[in-house]
């Protein structure tokens, strides 16, 4: 699916090229090709970690299967173990672990060239009164 079908984000701040909900309301997978003309790369040779975290938050938003916006409320126990370079295809996976009081806790993983380069917990807030 096109990420913007599930996210309010628009170019150039969409950090996913495509995504699929693999289990409704629970898990999603997506990819992002790292290109030199990407705003996030900004003339460098790799995707900065801040944008990597944004990509993890966006795939988590899609995993929730909720349309519309959420806010990134927290990141927990994030471990970086590699880098996504220009030319790589970044793979993202997120699984919803628990919801409580409008907060959604996901376990998320980012892989590049088949190796995990970042993983950890993502917390999103959805306004359930909206």
């Amino acid at each position: 699916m096109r990420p913007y079908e599930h996210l309010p984000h628009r170019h150039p701040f969409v950090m996913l090229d495509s995504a699929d909900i693999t289990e409704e309301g629970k898990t999603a997978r997506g990819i992002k090709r790292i290109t030199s003309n990407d705003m996030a790369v900004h003339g460098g040779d790799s995707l900065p970690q801040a944008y990597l975290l944004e990509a993890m938050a966006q795939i988590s938003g899609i995993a929730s299967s909720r349309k519309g916006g959420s806010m990134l409320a927290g990141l927990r126990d994030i471990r970086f173990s590699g880098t996504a370079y220009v030319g790589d295809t970044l793979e993202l996976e997120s699984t919803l672990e628990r919801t409580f009081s409008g907060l959604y806790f996901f376990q998320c993983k980012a892989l590049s060239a088949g190796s995990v380069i970042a993983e950890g917990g993502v917390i999103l807030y959805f306004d359930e009164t909206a």
Partner: protein
Amino acid sequence: MEREGLIEELKALIIKSLKLEDVLPADIEPADPLFGSGLGLDSIDALELVVALEKKYGIRIPDEDVGKEAFASVNALADYIIKNKP
């Protein structure tokens, strides 16, 4: 598990899972509120506590209303676990 032992275990779990680096178990008064004026925990802490407690004790805190009762204090949390542990 006896209640006093559970209370001490819960204090340690709260400190560890919420990474309260400046808090010692002895600083947590079992009757004090966990949220707001007590330990000053917030809604994200509540979510993290729910995840940690469900993993460790196999209990279920289904919604905010039950959470308010269970998280009233460490004493209330111990009572909730004793009552609802599978």
